[in-house]
């Protein structure tokens, strides 16, 4: 039996207070094992991004327990959360969100810098990842000179840079055509499984569900497995 990497129990999130209070998430409980890739489906405003942000230590839940890689993230200070995200979580964002003035290699290196990885070790990891992701030829290109697929692969490389326990993916196909989108999710699924990571992907695109191991649907803040 593989280890549970992500566990949420009865997690709720309420924005605002009093009459303006909005419940984004109601007692959401999910769990995810090492090497498992899960899709989080739901319409806009359903709470899937809130759940992803809570698992990623970007948001603190109003109530409930969240354990990621054995750590209770709800108890971490703001500073500790930064370090936790740098070392244990890999993010792949919707709009690639690469630093525009850094090259492909530097965009990956910057993640290692925030995790205080020694420079020579970080450079070795970058070289390896660039090779594995088929990006060696564009290592010195800035994002504006990369294709959409290359940018998303650099973003995946950045997410894998610090060998995190969890990869969180936010709408990875939103800005790509179907063919490229499929290739990117296929690559993500491969990387997550082959590297024994736990992956959660927020998506609207039901076709991408085929590449995941499990689907969790959220509707009005409530998880429906």
């Amino acid at each position, binding site marked *: 039996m593989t280890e549970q990497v992500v566990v949420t129990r009865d997690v709720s999130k309420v*924005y605002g207070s009093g009459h303006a209070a*909005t419940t*984004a998430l109601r007692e959401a409980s999910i769990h995810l094992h090492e090497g498992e890739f899960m899709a989080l489906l739901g319409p*806009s*405003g*359903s*709470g*899937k*991004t*809130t759940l*992803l*942000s809570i698992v*990623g230590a*970007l*948001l603190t839940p109003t109530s409930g327990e969240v354990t990621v890689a054995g750590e209770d993230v709800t108890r971490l200070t703001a*500073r500790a959360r*930064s*370090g936790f*995200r*740098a*070392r244990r979580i890999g*993010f792949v*964002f*919707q709009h690639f*969100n690469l*630093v*525009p*003035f*850094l090259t492909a290699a*530097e965009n990956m290196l*910057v*993640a290692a*810098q*925030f*995790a205080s990885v020694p420079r020579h070790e970080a450079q070795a990891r970058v070289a390896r990842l660039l090779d594995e992701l088929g990006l060696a030829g564009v290592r010195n290109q*800035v994002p504006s000179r990369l294709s959409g697929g290359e940018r998303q692969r650099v973003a995946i490389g*950045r997410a894998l840079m610090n060998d995190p326990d969890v990869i*969180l993916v*936010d*709408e990875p196909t939103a800005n790509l055509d179907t063919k490229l989108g499929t290739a990117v999710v296929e690559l993500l699924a491969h990387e997550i499984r082959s590297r024994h990571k736990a992956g959660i992907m*927020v998506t609207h695109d039901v076709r991408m569900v085929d590449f995941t191991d499990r689907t969790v649907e959220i509707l009005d803040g409530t998880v429906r497995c």
Partner: protein
Amino acid sequence: MRLAWKEILRRRGRFLSVGITLLLINVLVLFLVSQLAGLDSGQTGAIRALDADLLTFDAGVDQSLFRSSVPVAAVQRARSVSGVSDAGAVGVLFGTGRTQVEVVPDDLFDMSVFGYEPGSPGEPANLVAGRLPRADESGVGAIDARARTDGVALGDVVYFAESDRPIEIVGFVEDSSFQLQPTLWVGLDTWEELLVAVRPERVSDDQRANLLAIDVESGADPDAVAQALDSGLTHTESVTTADAIAALPGFSEQRRTFLTIVGMTYLATAIVITLFFALITLEKSEQIGILKAIGARTRDLTASVLAQSLLLAIPAFLGAAALTLLVGAALPPELPFTVDTQAWLTVGLLTATVSVIGALLSFRRISRIDPANAIGGAGD
């Protein structure tokens, strides 16, 4: 730091524009402080060259070199005052100098004459060529090196005002001009000859000079010695050389004017830097959110902005210093311009400080960027 440097390198255009603005502001400030130093130096050189700790004036004349009149006999009384190591009388005349006995308008240059007792306080420091007049000779003088630009050389003869008394130039004294004009340094006897010739109305029965130059004993408190002098002498006001310089007509006002301009320029610098970093922080809000999401701390990002402000300010200052030196070297000698290293270093320090403060103001904005915004939208 690497992130900061890479951004400057790869976004040269925007950083160059603010860097050039900073450089030009620094050129303006360095030029202003050098002009101020030049003016200060040109106005006060003769007073500083007296190399005295205290100057004793006639009381009630607001330390005016012109109006002050003290008996030369007071020198002996001053020497007996506790805390005084030596004293000397100094006479001052203002007028024009010329190098020919005939008065030819084109040959005239403004000049002051300082008479002193050779070997006593009041004898000029900073001799750079030739020698100073000796106690046993008259009709010789050392002149401020600035007079070289008026064509005066060693061995030349100069005449003061309407006097036809020739004064042979035997030495040059550096940094000893007064009110931006060269000073002729002569023995007190020669000065009296000139006084009789050109200002007979100022000649009195007792031998008088304009002020006393006082050296204070090592370890003595100059203020206490000044008080003792004024108690021991009749109707005098003794002040430190620095106070006498500050009392020169227009000196303090001139400094205040220049320093106000410099202050306003720094205010402009602070606004430029603050706006620049506020704008680029605003523009990079999303990017900052992403970097925070992947583990960057507010401290890392603020340090990056601070590093950028210094990477702009330091080269801008160094470039401005080089440019100002070039401009200064090309200036005609009559324009006051003196490189005051301490003032320049202060300018560099102020530029760096203002830049850092300007950049630090973006800290609040950076700290308020929520990394959660990097993913989807709140409430989704």
